[in-house]
Structures are given as structure tokens and as C-alpha cells.
């Protein structure tokens, strides 16, 4: 049984007369501990896919299983619990709480989890041990993203979902972030899904899912992923 399983997932947005098929009959699998990169052009449906997987949105048809559980049948409340416990999200624009320090930001997420990791330790693990009492506005973009990752990690989730994590970062910083993600996955066996439109990054992935116009064009396994430090673009 695959860790993540998408079965014939359809997502249709309806507003009045207009209906948009964001996902058409998407099916794929992801194994535990994999780094899975989802590529595709803008508007392909990548974010939608991730959102549904992350419990932020619901599908119209089909089924999604995570670690054997059918999350597509979850009620709204159950979805929230699912998000709480099982999912860690990393956004393109970090979305840190400006009013809380770095440490508090991570604590905020850790507080609501049943089995969190220590916030300060997680921050140190991402290399921000010296910035614990600073506010996000006092951090650079990369540092902020690292905080976001720490926040997601502290929750001790089953999987990490990253939506264009390097989109707002420069080349070098982006690479650092990706390294962090790579280390997390390789180091702790975390399943990481990364959405990007940069096809160069597919080299680091164990599995590459190509999405175009709402459908999965291809799912390819990469038996020998390249460490990010070796990838140039």
C-alpha cells in the first residue's frame, strides 16, 4: 500500500454558470520517505493538488489515501485535525505571524500538536538558533523560510508539503532551503512533496510527477536522485 495514493481525483470549481476543472482524473502514488517533486506550468493544478492533499480543499470525485486512511471522506472538522497532526505546510511567501518572535512562531504550531518536537531544537536544527527572539521582519527571506520549515517540522507531521518554497528566494538561498528539505527527508525519513515550476529540480527527487492542465502527464521514478548541491540552473 502506497503511503500517499491518489485515485481518480477530480476537482471542479463551480461559480454560477462557470465550472472549471482544476484536476481531471488524477491518479498517482507516493511512497513513504520519498522526495516527490511536482512540476508543471502555471495554472496546471499543482497547488490545487497539494491543497487537497493538505486538507485545505476538498475534491469533487475520487479518493485520496494517506497512510491507509481515506482523507477524502473526512468532515470539515476532521480535516482540521488532519491538518493539525499529519501535515506540515511550507508556502512560497512564508506566512509567518509578524507579531510573534521566531521561537513563538514555531511554538504556535507546536502548541496545538499532540506530539511535537521541541521548538527551539527544531530552530537550531534549521540553523536559526541565534535568532530565536527576533521578529520575522528582522530576518532575511531565507531565514524566514527556514522558520517556516521549522514550524512545519515541529509539528512532527506525516508529510511535508511545500508550495514553491524557493519562489521568493534568490538562487543561493533557494538552494540552501532545498538542501534543508533534502536533509530533512533523508535524515528523518519524512515524505516531502515539493511543487515547483523549475524542472531542474526534478533531479533531486525520488519521484517526479508532471502535471499539465489538471492531469498527471507522467509519474517517473528516479532511482538515483542528485543531491541539490550538485544541481545548477
Amino acid at each position, binding site marked *: 500500500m502506497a503511503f500517499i495514493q491518489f485515485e481518480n481525483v477530480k476537482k471542479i470549481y463551480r461559480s454560477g454558470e462557470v465550472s472549471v476543472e482544476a484536476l481531471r482524473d488524477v491518479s498517482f502514488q507516493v511512497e513513504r520517505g520519498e522526495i516527490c517533486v511536482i512540476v508543471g506550468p502555471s495554472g496546471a493544478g499543482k497547488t490545487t493538488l497539494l491543497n487537497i492533499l493538505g486538507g*485545505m480543499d476538498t475534491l469533487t470525485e475520487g479518493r485520496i489515501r494517506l497512510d491507509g486512511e481515506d482523507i477524502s471522506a473526512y468532515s470539515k472538522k476532521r480535516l482540521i485535525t488532519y491538518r493539525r497532526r499529519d501535515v506540515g505546510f511550507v508556502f512560497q511567501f512564508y*506566512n509567518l*505571524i509578524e*507579531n510573534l518572535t521566531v521561537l513563538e512562531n514555531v*511554538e504556535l*504550531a507546536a502548541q*496545538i500538536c499532540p506530539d511535537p518536537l521541541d521548538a527551539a531544537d527544531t530552530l537550531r536544527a534549521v540553523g536559526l538558533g541565534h535568532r530565536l527572539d527576533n*521578529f*520575522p521582519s528582522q530576518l532575511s527571506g531565507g531565514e524566514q523560510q527556514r522558520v517556516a520549515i521549522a514550524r512545519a517540522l515541529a509539528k512532527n507531521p506525516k508529510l511535508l508539503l511545500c508550495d514553491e518554497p524557493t519562489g521568493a528566494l534568490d538562487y543561493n538561498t533557494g538552494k540552501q532551503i532545498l538542501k534543508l528539505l533534502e536533509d530533512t527527508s533523508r535524515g528523518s525519513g519524512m515524505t516531502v512533496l515539493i511543487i515547483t515550476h523549475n524542472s531542474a529540480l526534478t533531479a533531486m527527487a525520488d519521484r517526479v510527477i508532471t502535471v499539465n492542465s489538471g492531469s498527471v502527464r507522467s509519474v517517473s521514478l528516479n532511482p538515483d536522485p542528485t543531491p541539490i548541491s550538485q544541481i545548477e540552473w
Partner: protein
Amino acid sequence: MTPLFKNTYREILRSPGRFLAILAIIVLGSGFFVGLRVSEKAMTATAADYYSDAAFYDFSLANTLGFTDENVAAIAADPNVMAAEGAFETDALVTVGGGVDLVYKFHSMPSAVNTPVLVSGRMPQSPGECLADSWSGIKVGDTVTLSPANSDDTLELFRTRSFTVTGVATSPLYLNFERGSTDLGSGSVSAFCYIPPEALDADYYTAVYVRCHDMPRAYSAAYDDRADLLEPDMTALSEAVARSRYDSVISDAQSEIDDAEREYSDALQDYLTQREDAERELDEAKAELDDAKAELDDAKRQIDDGWLEYNDSVDEFNSGRLRGQEELDSARRELEAAKAALDAAANEYDSGMAQYEEGERQYSEGAAQLEQLRAAYELAKADPSTPPTVLSGLEAQLDSASATLAASRQELDSAKAGLDAAKATIDSGRLEYEENLEKYNAAVDEYNASMADAQAQLDDAYADLLDAEADYADGLREYEDGLQEYQDSRAQADSEFAEAEEELEDARRKIDDAKLKLEDIEEPDSFALGRWSNLGYSCFESDTSIVKAISAVFPVFFFLVAALICLTTVSRMVEEQRSQLGVLLALGYSRPAVMGKFLVYSGTATVLGAASGILLGSKLIPMVVWKAYNIMYVFSDSIKFVFDLPLSAITFSLYVISMLAVTLITCGRELRDVPANLIRPKPPRSGKRVLLERVRFVWDHLSFLWKVTVRNIFRYKSRVLMMILGIAGCTALMMTGMGINDSIRNVVDYQFTEISLYDYSVTFSDGLSPEDMTGFVSAVSEYAGRTVFFNQESMTASAGREEKEVQLNVLPEESLAAIPEFVDFHTGRAPIPLPSDGQILINSGLSESLDLSVGDSLTLRNDDGESMDLTVSGVYDNYIYNSVYVTGATYTSALGREPDINFALVIKAPQADSGQGLAAILSQPNVLTSTSSVDLRARIGGMMDSLIYIVLLTIVCAAALAFVVIYNLTNINIQERLREIATVKVLGFYDPETALYVLRENILLTLLGAAAGIPLGLALNAYVVTRIELDMIHFTPRVLPATYLWSVALTILFSLIVDLLMLRRLSHIDPASALKSAE
């Protein structure tokens, strides 16, 4: 339509909520502002219109003698007077529809001044018809009947006893529900009633109502000034008329007395003459009667003699008769004896004869037998067989038989001879008897005849005597009749004389009394009273003053808050759309053009809002206020629509200018930036350490989420400040609204339960002597428990340049001990002692208006120019009237005379009925007027009742304000932190947790705002309450504990309601779409 304009237009349509919110706030703010301000004007205008329709009087003239038509004409001739009309008013008991007796005040129907305004039906046209009070519930067709329980004096004033209601009306004399008090029945008048003048049988008017020339509108300052100007003239006019009335009354009375004197002496003269004549006649009659009596007596004597004679004759006659009778009787007896003897002899003879015959027969028989015997003897003899004995026997028998027979024969023959002799005697005796009998009969006849003669004579004499008796009896009767007549006449004459004398005495006495009374008629008191003396008029004035006071402050507050909210909303909107601004600038539109969009947006909202708010407010708020007051004032169902152009224009401009200014400033600020920057999203405000963080002790104990909240508060200072201000304002408004109620309503209770402990205040028409006082106390003892007498005068108090009318109460020595039972002097809880010489005790209201405290001096002045300089010894809490107190000694030493006792306070007996007590007091002859505390309390309390609507209105508006403020600001809050909220949701916060995350702020700010609102509310309340200026009542700002609780509780409640509404909004935030980055 240019695209730019379309943009604006669509902007409005797309987010109608925001546009409408601004619109709503402006409508509320401007409407309330203008509406309340205008309410007072509208109320006044409505009343003024009513008064002018009803030709309400300017002055009422009254005096203690009344007015005649000439007096009215004299008044009307005064150059200041436009119209004058006499009115007759009287109270009477009536039964309506067979119920309990009520007291009605009847008015003669006026035609020129104070004309009633018809509500339904028609005016009465004939004496049996009347116009009823619209307040009383009587309908057209009902009948009002004067109760037979009325005094004769009252009933005599009316020509008919019952009236049919032809119409129902309101009267300008009775603007509110008060109908006044009376000394009849229950003590208060139930309703008024207008009847045609022809229905009244009085030849004077009780008052004259006057309308003057050139009087400004009612209730305006100009009116009051002109009325003050005219008052001395009116007073002088009233006095002049009263004097001429007095003179004419006196001279009329005098001539009547003179006439009466003349009549009296004439009558006396007649009486004396008539009496003489009568006496004479009676004496003559008496003499005649005496003569007649003498004659009768003579006659009587004669008759008596006659009777004597007659009786003698009768005696003689009787004795003669008796003798004769006796003789005749003896003769008869003899005759009868003879007859009897004869008859006996005859009988003897007959029996003898019979015997003889018998004997003869027997003899014959015997003979026969002898023969037979012989025969038998012979035979026997012849017969041989006969025994010898037998034969001898037979022979013996025969011999005896023959002997017997022979003896018998002899007997028989002698008997026969005797019989024959007897017969011869009898026959001769018979003859004698016959002769005697004849003689006897002759004697009888003779006797009878002479007896008859004598009898006849006697009868004649008797008859004559009877006649004489009869004549005498007639004569006697006549005499007795005559005597009776005389005596009757005598008695009648005597009684008539006595009567006449009595009447003459009465008349004498009456004339003397009238003379005394005439001397007693005092010169009349006269009055000229302005409109302020009419209860309805001044109550209305007080009420409008309250509305005016409230309207001074509240709306300003609303305006400020509304302005603040709009400022926030618009600046938010501008900030949100900064990227749009940037784009437009980048496209090449000029700054003004770009700003134009926002100006149009806010401008449209403001213009529409202000215009509709002002119009709606001017129309609706007075209507609401009127609804509250119309319960007490029924003269008009609808309030006049008053549009205050200056006020409206100012308000309109104020709002428009301020909104546009805000928009300009906010826009301008943003637009100073470079377009590129505008297009980029605004970097979020950086987090900062808060001061509180340094207080490690507190900070460490705060939960996470509280830390977020605290930091947030300090991060968005302006929004937070706005929220606190808005909530504080809401709390303050509610506190003020309820606080006004507290300060005003409870004044009445407080005054009458803790300060004025008496039940009645009584004003007397003159100074009372000690006998008057005891007389009064015993007269009303059924209703009055305790009474204290002192002096009360109106004075003007002045200190510096300020002046105030006060009631000066002068307490003589005897009243000092008792007065604290009737008036409790205290301030707060501390009691205040009575003043001593040279000192004065003043009430709190006066001390505030004249700015006096203990130890300051003030001057009291009266109309006669006398004055007293006094030092304030104490200030006591008091709310109603300006009542100040000095001792009698102070008064005497200042003015050089003793104070008149013309006032009393009465505490009623327990269980006594208040209304009847009042009636009893009013019916005392020396009482000028009296008020019961119960009535005063009800009257003032009634005035305050309408306040509850004002308070409710305030609370509703405050609630609306709070609602809009919190809603708006929370909305903005959420808008600003949408990403943050979405992130938190993504992190897995449940909906309640997410809500709390956001709304925790609201809760904290609400509590802070409410706390801040309390002192604000206290200040506002104090300001408004002190602005309410009523002549009679002085208010102290008070806020009851309940008000604090309610204000804060309601504020929190409104806040919670908004938060609940926000919950929905929050739960609908879709994290996915919210986090879709601005790429």
C-alpha cells in the same frame, strides 16, 4: 461613462457592505444630530400653532369680585388689548352615564379667546348641549347631568340640569392631562366641559381673558420679553377694573339697602294703622255680643218660670187624675164584685138547678125503682115462694126506699123553693147591677172627658214651653256662633299681628345685617397672570427644555463618532486599494484623477447619507419624541415638520467636508509614494516588543495567544484607539441616557421621601390669628395629623450680578421645633441645623445658580423694595423650588415688622384620603390655595415619565453606534490580517480557536472601552443634567449602580453579538484562496 468612473461605480456595487456601512453611520450621525436639535423646535412650533388656532390668551385678569360686561368692555378698550372676553367658570358634581359623581369644571363657551378645538361632533348650540373633554373618554351623544348632591348655590348657577354632548374637543387651557384641584368631591377635577353662555344663570364673569397686540410666537424669548413689558399695564388695568367693580358693587348694595329701609318704614306704618282698625271692629262686635247675651239670659229665666208652672199643673192634673181614677176603679171593683156575686149566684143557681134536676131525675129513678121494688114486693108478696125474710127484706127495702124517696122529695122541694128564691134575688141583683153599671160608665165618660181636657191644656202649655225653649236654643246658638266668630277673629287678629311683628323684626334685622356686611366688603384683590400661570403651558415648556438640553450634547457625540468611523473605513479602503492606485498612476492618470475615484466614493456616500439622514431625522425623531409626549399632551396627533435650514446646511456641509477631507488626506498620503511601491504589497507592520514584555512576571504567565493579542493591540494603535473610543462612547452614551433618567426620575421620589415630608402645603388669603390657626386645625382635623404655620413670601435673591426668584420661608419661634418633621434639612447624609439670626438656609439649586457656599452673603428683595442682607448658614439638598429659610427674629429685625402667618404645611392623618383631605382644606374660607404632595409628585413624575422614551431612544442609538463601530472595525481587522488568519487555519486551528485568535482582541478592547466609557459617561451625564434648566426643579447628576452595570453589560452584549456574527465570516475564510499569493 469612462472606465475610471465605471471602476468607481462597480466598486460601490461590488462591496455594498462597506458603502452602506459608511452611509448608515452618516445617516445615523446626521439624522440624530439634526433630529434631536429640531425636535424641540418642532414641539414648540406645534404648540404655538395650536395656541394660535385656539386664540390662546396672553393674560388672564381676575379679581375677588368678578367682572361685568362693562368691565370687559373697559378692558377691551385698553390700547394694548386686541381682544378681551369674559369667562365664567365653576366646578360642579356631575353624574355621567349613571356612574359615580365626578367633579367637572364648567366653562362658558368662548368665541374670541381660548376657543376649544373640535375633535369630533359639532359645537353646542342650545342651552341643553355641551362640549366634552377629549381626554375624558366621553362620546358624542352621552349625557352629562348635574348631580343632586350639588349645593343649591351651585345648582342655581345653571339653567338646565342635564346636557347632551354634541361634540368632543381639546382646550388650550388644558394642554396636558391636569385638570386642576377643587374643593368639591374627591378634590380633583376630572374633566372640563363647555356650555353655551345661555345655559348659565350668572350675571358676572369669574375671569377675563385678554389677547394683546403684536405678541410674538409662543415660547420664544421675544414673547417672554413682550409679556414682561406688558405685565405692569395689565396689572394696572386689572386693578382699575377691580376698583370700578368694587365701587359699583358697593353703590348697588347701598341703594338696595336704602330701598329696603324705605319699604320697612312703609310697612311698619301700614301695620300700625291696620291694627288699630281691627281692634276697633273687634271691640264693637264684642259689645253686641254682650247685649245679646243679656237678652238670652232673660228669656231663659222666663222659660224656667214657665216650666215651674207647668210642672205644678202637671202635678195637679196627675193627682186629680189619680183620684178620679181611684174612684172609678173602686166603683168598678164594686161593680165587678157585684157582677161576680151575681155570676156566682147564677152559677149556684145553675148548679143548684142542675142538682135539683139531677135530684129530680134521681127521684124519678128512685121512684121508678120503688115502683119496681114495689112491683117486686108485690110480686114477692104475691109469690108464695118468697121467703119471709126476703119478703121482709123486700119490705124493708121498700120502706127505706119509700122513705128515702119521700125525703128526697122534700129535699127537692125545698131545694126548688130555695132555688126560686135565689133566682128572684139574682134577678133583682141583676137589675141593680145594670143600673150601677150604667152609672159607672157615665162616670167613666165624664172622667175621661175632663181628663182629656185637662190633658189638652197641659199639652198646649207644654208645646208653648217647647217652642220657647227652641227659640231660646236658637238664640243661644246664634249667640254662641257669634261668640265663636268673635273669638276666632280675635285669635286670628292676634296671630296676624304677631306674625307681622315678627316679619317686621326680621326685616329690621336683615337690613341691619346688610348694613354691617356692606361695611365688611373688602377692597378686592386683583391679578393679571401671564401664560406661565397656565399649568399645561408651563409643563410643556419644561418638557421642551429637557429635550433641548439633551439635544445639546448627544448628537455632537454621535457626529464625532460617526466621523471617526468614516475616517477609519475610508483610510482602510484607500490602503487596500493601493495597488490599484499604483496601477492607475502607472497608466498615466494624474493624482487628482486617481483621487477622484475615492472622493466620488466617499462623497456619494456622504452626500446621500447626510441628505437622507437630515431629512429622515428631521421627520422621524421629532415623531418619536412626540409619541412619547403625546401621552400627556393630546392637543395634536402629529408633530409639525420643522426643517431648520441653517442647522441642516451646516450639518450637511460639516459631514461632506469632513469626509472629503479625510479621503483627500488619506489618499494624498498614499499617493505621495512612487507608483512602483504602491503596486507592491505593503509590507506588513513589523512586530515589536511591547512594554509589557519587560514585566517578565506577567508576560511569562500570559498564554501564547494572549501575547499575540497584546502585541496586536500595540501594533495597530490607531485602529485600537478607534475601537476603544467607539466602545467608550457607546458605554458613555448609554450611561448618560440612563443617568439622565436616574438624575431626573428619582428626584421626585427623593424629594418627597427624604426632604419634603409633608402632605399638603396651604397658602392662606390673609395673615392668621392664633384663633384662626386653631380653627383651621380643628376644621380639618379629620384629615390633618400635624400642622405647622409660618410665613412664605416671594422674594428675589441676588448675589453679585445673578438673580433668582426664591420662596422665602420665615419661621416664627413656635414653629422652629416642629419644622424638621415637615422638611428634613440635610446634605448628603449630614443633617443641617436651622439658621440663627441674620442667617439664611439656602437650597442646593440656589447655591449652584448663584455660586454661593456657607459663609457667603446674599440679599433678598421683595416687590416693595424692602431688602435683607443675610449670611448663608447652610446649604441643604433640595430639588423642587428654590426654598430658603430664615427665622422670624431675622425677619423682624431686618424689616421691622412681624411676619404674617400665611402658610402652613400639613402632614395628613394616617388612613385619611389624600384627595378628600385636599378638598377639605380648600373648602376652608381663609385658604387661598393648597397643593397636595401626592398631586405635585404625580405631576412632576408624569413629566418625567416621557423621559423613558428619550432614554430608550438614546440606548437604541448607542447600541446601533456600538454595533456599527465594532462591526466595522472588526471587519477591517480581519481584512488586514486575512493571510495571518488563513495561516493559522492552515496550521490546524479549529474554527473556535481561530475565532478566539482574532476576537480575543475585541473582547479585551471592549472591556477597556467600557472601562474608559464610565468616567466619560459620568462627565457627559453631569454636563447634560446640569444643562436641563427648569424653573421649578433642580437636578443633581446622579448615576445609580444599576446604570453602571447595565451600560457595561449592554456594551459587552452588543460586542458579543458582533463577534458572533464575525464567527461566520471567519469560518468562511478559505485558507486556500486567502493564501493565494499576490504573485
